[in-house]
């Protein structure tokens, strides 16, 4: 092992250019994946944020008595998916409308009667915010005679979930594409490294080294190159993230486990590419 390790290290010293290019190519590939990871993670966060808002508003009939309202509140509080039910009176609604639509405060000020209905705002539990749950809760509320109309932002929610599935498809397509390019580039880099050392390999074979022995330093070199590339990619991704989040708009940094996974992926790519390249070369020889 000491020989393989020393040889692998010496390879870096002897051909720093080649090792650098290989690492840079792995880094570039993983950097692209890293940027994509930030985008994907932030889309996920946005979706979670949107889901966190998820609430159903029930506009009450003017004819509904306080007892009807109380009964409805009680019924809703009993539903498994519901976390909180808040009553908004007609006066409160007008107040909110005046504040939110300040441009038209003159309109609301000149009203002789309040045209807005009272409502119940129903908040759902964090893990019960899928579009199906929201829809079923809304239908249940709508069935109550005291309710005139139910709003649950169905268009908006549907759009968000469409965005999510589009994003998932894009992740699949682009991710797979970049992975293929990365593997091709790394494979080429390792074959270049072997090309540069073909003399050495030939002589190893001539003086009686086993194929496994010849292979080891290359695998180790691939591993180290890959890990180095992974770390460079993590650094580059983090720098891009910093620039992006300070200068343009605020995004969230990906979880540490993704970073570690990315670096290990670099190492794995390096080993696999070396394995394939060395195997092919040794078979020919």
């Amino acid at each position, binding site marked *: 092992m000491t*020989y393989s390790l020393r040889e692998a290290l010496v390879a870096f010293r002897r051909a720093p250019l080649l090792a650098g290019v290989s690492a840079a190519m792995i880094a570039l590939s993983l950097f692209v994946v890293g940027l994509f990871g930030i985008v994907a993670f932030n889309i996920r966060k946005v979706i979670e944020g949107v889901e966190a808002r998820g609430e159903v508003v029930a506009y009450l009939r003017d004819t509904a008595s306080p007892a009807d309202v109380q009964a409805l509140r009680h019924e809703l509080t009993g539903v498994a998916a519901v976390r909180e039910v808040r009553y908004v009176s007609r006066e409160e609604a007008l107040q909110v409308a005046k504040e939110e639509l300040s441009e038209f405060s003159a309109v609301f000020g000149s009203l002789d009667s309040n045209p807005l209905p009272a409502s119940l705002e129903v908040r759902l539990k964090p893990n019960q915010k899928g579009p199906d749950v929201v829809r079923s809760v809304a239908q249940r509320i709508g069935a109550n005679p005291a309710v005139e109309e139910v709003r649950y932002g169905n268009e908006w929610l549907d759009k968000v979930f469409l965005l999510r599935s589009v994003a998932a498809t894009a992740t699949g397509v682009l991710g797979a594409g970049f992975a293929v390019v990365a593997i091709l580039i790394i494979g080429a880099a390792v074959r270049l490294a072997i090309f540069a050392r073909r003399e*050495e390999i030939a*002589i*190893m074979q*001539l*003086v*009686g080294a*086993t*194929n496994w022995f010849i292979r080891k330093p290359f695998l180790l070199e691939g591993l180290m190159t890959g890990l180095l590339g992974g770390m460079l990619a993590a650094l580059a991704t983090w720098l891009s993230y910093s620039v992006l989040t300070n200068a343009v708009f605020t995004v969230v940094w990906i979880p540490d486990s993704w970073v570690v996974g990315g670096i290990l992926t670099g190492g794995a790519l390096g080993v696999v590419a070396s394995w394939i390249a060395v195997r092919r070369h040794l078979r020919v020889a």
Partner: protein
Amino acid sequence: MISLLHVTKTYPRTGDAVADVSLTLNKGEFCFLTGHSGAGKSTIMRLIHMAERPTSGEVRVSGYSSTTIRPREIALLRRKIGYCFQDFRLLQDRTAAENVAFALEVTGAKPQVIRTKVPRLLAQVGLASKAEALPSQLSGGEQQRVAMARALVHEPLVVLADEPTGNLDERATRGIFDLLQHINQSGTAVLLATHNLELVRANPDVRVIELDHGRLVYDSAAEEVRS
């Protein structure tokens, strides 16, 4: 220990490099291999080294046969064969000492073994003072002697020396020949390909095999038996 049985090696365009050659080299034997340029001397050595497989016939070396040997066994066999290549095959980015040590390292020798063996062998070929020189800093003859030192480093059962004195003056040639004879006395077989007929004539008691256009045309051992 080494035997070729009706061995023919045919190359696509150039035809037969070796044609129906049968010969046996016993343990501890010393033998010259002669013949004109292109006669097939190096090809026979490559066949013994299992770097080429015969087109027909069989090569047997130290219990292995060219018809059945597997890649891992080739590696192990080569550790018992010291090959001094005609074109040296030195690594240009390693010093003389590192080139010799390389053959030990890549077969898993221990560092202390390497540390003692390498300087001793370089001294034996007369290159003690050039141990730290790169091949590009050595003269042709000096490179040739590094190749010879590397061939001897495994304490092989047989040494294949392909034109090991082509770039050497008479004294250095004598030195290499004496070294090979010394090694031979401790039981190592030696097959020495050469154009240096002076060397051959100066050692009339050594077996001589001559090739001509791939055919074995003379074997002094066989002549003796016949006569």
